[in-house]
């Protein structure tokens, strides 16, 4: 199973990518570990996480096709 991961704003810049796919992740904690291994610099930034366009907090189960987005503080207007 595979999930789609999106990075926005400054996080797209520091990771050098806007879109990445991860396989074999069944929970948010698994995904967060994989991401902090791949992009250790991300820990220096504030962000929230959206699962399928809904902001989430804490542990969640991931399903194939889920979209997880790493969102820096918003700056609209």
């Amino acid at each position, binding site marked *: 199973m595979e999930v789609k991961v*999106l990075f*926005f*704003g*400054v996080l*797209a*810049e520091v990771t050098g990518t806007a879109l990445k796919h991860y396989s074999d992740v069944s929970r948010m904690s698994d995904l967060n570990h994989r991401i902090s291994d791949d992009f250790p610099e991300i820990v220096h930034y504030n962000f929230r996480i*959206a699962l399928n*366009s809904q902001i989430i907090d804490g542990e969640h189960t991931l399903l194939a096709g889920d979209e997880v*987005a790493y*969102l*820096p*503080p*918003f*700056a*609209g*207007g």
Partner: protein
Amino acid sequence: MEFNYLIEGPVSSGIIASYMEMISSVKNAGGHSFFLGQVRADVMEGKTVTAIEYSAYENMVVAEADKIIESVMAEFDDVKTVRIIHSKGIVKAGEISLAVMVSAGHRKHAIDACAKTVELIKERLPVWKKEIYSDNSHTWKDNQ
């Protein structure tokens, strides 16, 4: 006329004019309040902002803007229509990057609902801005 929430580049005077033409058919409205957000040529450490590059999580913008409009219309029951138009991509200093246009039966709800919509956009819309300076350097800015 139907708009999307996001448009590429600045909000043009034509978009605002289109809304003004549309409201002539909203005959139960007695007041309209518009807010236009403009890119300001701030000076930071001797460098002037020449443009902002906006990026957005587009699916979530649609979901959140729908919710913002729903909550504003629930809070201000005299409001007839709420339009939100936000730029993505490059908007130069002096150009408009956000238009909020609210029509209501009476002025108080039009003005208050417009102000509330702008605050909710700042808080909830998944949009990011990169300020670009005259020397081509840049800084990411946020609303906190």
